[in-house]
């Protein structure tokens, strides 16, 4: 009886995966058919016809838009002349103008939408010549631009004080020399032509820096006015000069603002006016926290100068376009009368139609279709051929899903649910990256870099889990200790390995007593550790926000200059120990940069933690964590073991944030460390740990999978949907979803 039931449920549980597998098969077959169709002559020919039609449409579209816009502007001018113009509302005027525009557009479409081609062969050949010229010149252009971008990014990343390098007093040759020493590639013969343009760039940067510093100074002075003047009522009725004198006495540091005296006086006048009414102005708005985020440098191509070879190719391209343009004018005569600006935009449109970075069948097909090209023959074949790639991707996805459901029990039994799901997701993302022409190798390099960045931090979760306090969200306490170490190193202008060592050691030393107190607290809160550690961590971060403002650091490089105290939010570690470990013994293999030093350090930390967990103390600690009652009975002091684990976790976190900052290149204070506990927790959970069990392998696998999914996900999300929102959504949902899952696994039925 019971076996029958089992068999039946066995069949039923296999139905879903079988259906999925069949679906996957169908999808894959369709996609193969699509790929085969892409190679046939019929579709190639049809695609060529679509290309011609798309080019013609792109040309006529520009013309039609132009006519419509012109009609709208004419209508507006006509309305303006009318004396009732002011009586009409904005909405009404807009609707009248829009109606005129639509009318003109409809008329123009009638005229130009279906151009009649006289000399099809000449047009086709002109299009093909131009397309060829575009694709040829692009390869040279791409290499030159890449070289330029690399130099540009090197310069911008590594130079923080542009005024020193390219101040007005420095001669061009000296500027060039210092640029070449920063970016050695610039000294190569192939890049010599970039020299003068980059000198110009450096001068512009220096000027921009000057302006930015002035603006910051002005802003700070305005804030000073608001905070340092106790009572504005004393100032009522003073003349400008007398007011300035009095303010100079009252507000120390104001003399630096002689240059913006006018603006400052205006602000003071606002304060006085408010004081007359018996009010006070609201305190100045706080700077946006998001503004402190550091973005990756993007090359600015406005200083790019082409070589002679590239210029020659450009000229050839221009010739080819001229020929195409004459052909187009022959078809649509009105194109000849366009203004220069419109000519340029027309050329831009046509180039977009003819040259795509991803020159596959489907992307060509979709671009042509966007430009309203008609499909002349074999519509279903064309559509199927263009869908081959997405069909393949969907097929693989369904196949993976089916296999996972089929082997759910053995898979999750061996690897755990989160690790299985995230690992499969990662594999799928790698496939997607291949299809979206994203370089998997480069991405892997990024993943390695991020692994060294987060590895030690994630490792800090391990002793916490082992000793029984669960996910230690309070590693932020350790992080803040580490940041204290870093700013101390910066305070004394330490550089290189001494700075790194000083930060680590000092951070660890601060973390010891803090971790001890924190452990004593958690020992009294058994059963509620995660909740308490989260909020204690949050509170400590906000408390230290005040701390960062009040601590007696005074190196002008790290404090708010005008206030004379208070650490800045973001500290660049360039010139101190940025990327120090990552660049140590770093080498390139298959185009992947391997951050040897960082990986070695991570390996060393893992080894130490592993050795510890094998030691007598470590075994006792794990025992106390996994079964406190049993441990107590066998003579282990559970509270002491928990203290050991918590302190260890906090100290590792202190080292971890130093490593994180050197890999990131910046140390971020104030609210920045708040979420680090969540990131570390989700990484180790993805690696296969639970809230009561963790191993070194969980740390390594977790960091790799988590960062891998994030790096690949970000790139792919960006190429699927413009704007960066999607990857952020993915990060939030994965990271918190994993923690939620772990909570449901641990907390069920337990009641504090």
């Amino acid at each position, binding site marked *: 009886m019971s076996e029958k039931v089992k068999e039946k449920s066995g069949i039923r549980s296999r139905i879903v995966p079988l259906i999925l597998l069949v679906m996957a098969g169908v999808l894959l077959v369709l996609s193969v058919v699509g790929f085969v169709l892409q190679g046939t002559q019929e579709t190639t020919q049809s695609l060529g016809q679509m290309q011609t039609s798309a080019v013609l449409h792109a040309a006529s579209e520009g013309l039609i838009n132009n006519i419509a816009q012109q009609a709208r502007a004419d209508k507006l001018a006509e309305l303006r002349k009318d004396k009732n113009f002011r009586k009409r509302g904005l909405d009404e005027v807009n609707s009248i103008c829009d109606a005129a525009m639509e009318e003109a557009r409809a008329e123009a479409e009638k005229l130009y939408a279906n151009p009649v081609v006289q000399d099809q062969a000449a047009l086709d050949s002109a299009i093909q010549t131009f397309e060829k010229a575009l694709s040829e010149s692009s390869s040279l252009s791409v290499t030159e631009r890449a070289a330029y971008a690399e130099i540009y990014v090197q310069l911008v990343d590594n130079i923080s004080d542009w005024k020193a390098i390219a101040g007005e007093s420095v001669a061009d040759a000296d500027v060039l020399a210092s640029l070449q020493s920063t970016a050695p590639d610039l000294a190569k013969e192939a890049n010599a032509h970039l020299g003068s343009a980059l000198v110009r760039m450096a001068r512009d940067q220096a000027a921009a820096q000057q302006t930015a510093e002035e603006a910051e100074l002005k802003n700070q002075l305005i804030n000073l006015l608001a905070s340092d003047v106790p009572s504005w009522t004393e100032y009522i009725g003073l003349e400008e000069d007398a007011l300035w004198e009095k303010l100079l006495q009252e507000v120390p540091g104001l003399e630096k603002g002689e240059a913006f005296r006018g603006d400052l006086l205006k602000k003071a006048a606002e304060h006085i006016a408010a004081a007359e009414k018996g009010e006070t102005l609201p*305190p100045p708005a706080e700077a946006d926290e998001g503004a402190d985020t550091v973005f990756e440098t993007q090359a600015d191509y406005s200083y790019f100068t082409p070589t002679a070879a590239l210029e020659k190719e450009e000229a050839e391209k221009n010739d080819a376009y001229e020929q195409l343009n004459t052909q187009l004018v022959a078809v649509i005569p009105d194109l000849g009368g366009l203004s220069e600006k419109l000519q340029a935009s027309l050329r831009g449109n046509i180039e977009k139609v003819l040259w795509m970075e991803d020159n596959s069948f489907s992307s060509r097909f979709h671009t042509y279709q966007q430009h309203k090209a008609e499909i002349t023959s074999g519509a279903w074949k064309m559509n199927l051929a263009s869908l081959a790639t997405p069909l393949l991707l969907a097929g693989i996805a369904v196949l993976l899903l089916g296999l996972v459901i089929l082997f759910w029990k053995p898979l999750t039994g061996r690897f755990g649910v989160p690790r299985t799901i995230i690992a499969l997701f990662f594999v799928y993302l790698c496939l997607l990256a291949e299809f979206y022409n994203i370089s998997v190798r480069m991405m892997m390099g990024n993943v390695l870099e991020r692994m060294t960045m987060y590895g030690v931090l994630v490792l800090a979760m391990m002793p916490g889990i082992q000793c029984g306090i669960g996910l230690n969200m309070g590693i932020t306490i350790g992080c803040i200790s580490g940041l204290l170490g870093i700013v101390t190193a910066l305070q004394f202008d330490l550089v290189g390995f001494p700075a790194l060592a000083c930060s680590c050691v000092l951070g660890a030393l601060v973390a010891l007593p803090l971790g001890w107190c924190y452990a004593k607290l958690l020992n009294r809160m058994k059963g509620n550790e995660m909740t308490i550690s989260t909020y204690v961590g949050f509170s400590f971060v906000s408390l230290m926000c005040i701390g960062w403002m009040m601590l007696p650091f005074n190196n002008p490089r790290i404090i708010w200059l005008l206030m004379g105290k208070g650490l800045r939010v973001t500290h660049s570690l360039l010139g101190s120990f940025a990327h120090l470990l990552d660049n140590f013994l770093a080498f390139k293999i298959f185009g992947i940069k391997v951050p040897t030093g960082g990986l070695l350090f991570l390996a060393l930390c893992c080894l130490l933690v592993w050795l510890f967990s094998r030691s007598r103390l470590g075994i006792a600690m794990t025992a106390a964590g996994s079964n406190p009652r049993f441990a107590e009975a066998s003579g282990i002091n559970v509270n002491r073991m928990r203290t050991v684990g918590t302190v260890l976790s906090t100290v590792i976190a202190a080292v971890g944030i130093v490593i994180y900052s050197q890999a990131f290149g910046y140390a971020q204070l104030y609210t920045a460390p708040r979420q680090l506990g969540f990131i570390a927790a989700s990484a180790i959970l993805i690696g296969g740990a639970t809230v009561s069990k963790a191993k070194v392998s969980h740390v390594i696998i977790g960091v790799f999978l988590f960062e891998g999914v994030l790096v690949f996900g970000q790139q792919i999300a960006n190429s699927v949907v413009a704007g960066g929102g999607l990857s952020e959504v993915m990060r939030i949902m994965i990271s*918190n979803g994993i923690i*939620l899952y772990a909570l449901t696994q641990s907390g069920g039925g337990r009641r504090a």
Partner: protein
Amino acid sequence: MREQNQLKSHLEKYVVTYLFIALSVLFIITSGLDINYVASQLLLRLNRNAFIVLALIIPIIAGMGINFAITIGAMAAQIGLLLVISWGISGVPGILLAAAITLPLGSLFGFLIGKLLNKMKGQETIGSLILGYFANGAYQLLFLFIFGSIIPLNSNVTIVGASGVQNTLNLTGSVGLYTAVDGIAHIPFLLALYISCGVLALLTVVQYLRKKISRKKMLVGVIASVLIAGIFLIPAVANTVNGSHGRELKLPLVTWLLILGLCLFNSTIMRTRLGQKFRAVGQNQTVANASGINVDRTRVIAIMISTVLAGWGQIMFMQSEGIGTFQTYAAHEQVGLYAGAAILVGGASIDRATNLQALIGTFLFHSLFITAQSASSAMFGNSVIGEYFRAFLSYGVIALALIIYAWRTNRQRKAGQLNLADRHAVKS
């Protein structure tokens, strides 16, 4: 001896409240702000926040801790508001429609939250916090990529040239949702104060006559109400707090009726059968289960009610005076944090809370919030420190309350174990 113990346990329960009272007084004095200004700001913030804070009570009584997942209720309300703005329905009908949309959405979300929290009993506080973060991801997905493309919206709320909802939506002007409830009718603050003092005194007398409370309690109640009313009858006090003519304090009548209505709802539901179930489940799940109560179902209902109420509270917050804009992607983020901190400041703990505690907590918490910046610039010559101090207070209060609660229950548990051991010893 007994009195001393009572005093000690009273202090232990309300240590956070007394700390906040002391801090508030200190801050109000050092900030040098006009009392009238502080009073008007405080009233404004009470109008806005009281409703949401009151929404936390039922889950606390049902033993589910501070329900930080009320952010999800706020998200439901924001979906409702967005649709209402997109459809161009203004004024009271718009608010009512948004509330009507919030009801099914909030119930659905509450149902799901409850189901999930039932899987992590004992970890509800942290679970609901992380659930709120998780839902924020889903919310962004919805507002950035689904609204405006899959679900069509009016073009005045979407980003031009891309999918997704704009960063800020205006509630004033032709949208007409600004102060749609607040603006219906106002009542002078002093009048409201006198009336409520009178009603309070009357109620205590009635309770005494119905022999529900002792004579001593009745006298205390009556004298307290008379005293409060009397203090405000002194012209000097009334003028400092209430301000001179033309700037006198006013209360939005309908808003306050709704807040009082919610208080009434909270206290009446506790007298019903469902309320008894909440209380039983909150006190001891094993006992509740043994006496035939479906524990899981009761907990789900508690969270559903809380989520819907929080959603309505968020609508009240959005329409209130001085807001005027709808920060599409940020409006819900701090809802749980501020409401949770406020109710704990009032003397509530992880397992008990009353209407009065919620109201007093909101009052105290926001009085610090208003004065922190000015006080810090007076004390340290720097207003930014006040900003950080506010954040520290919010998180710190929650941490402190959690610690006190955990410490107390652990101690009780230990005591219970000792008692048990004693009994065993006697038996053998």
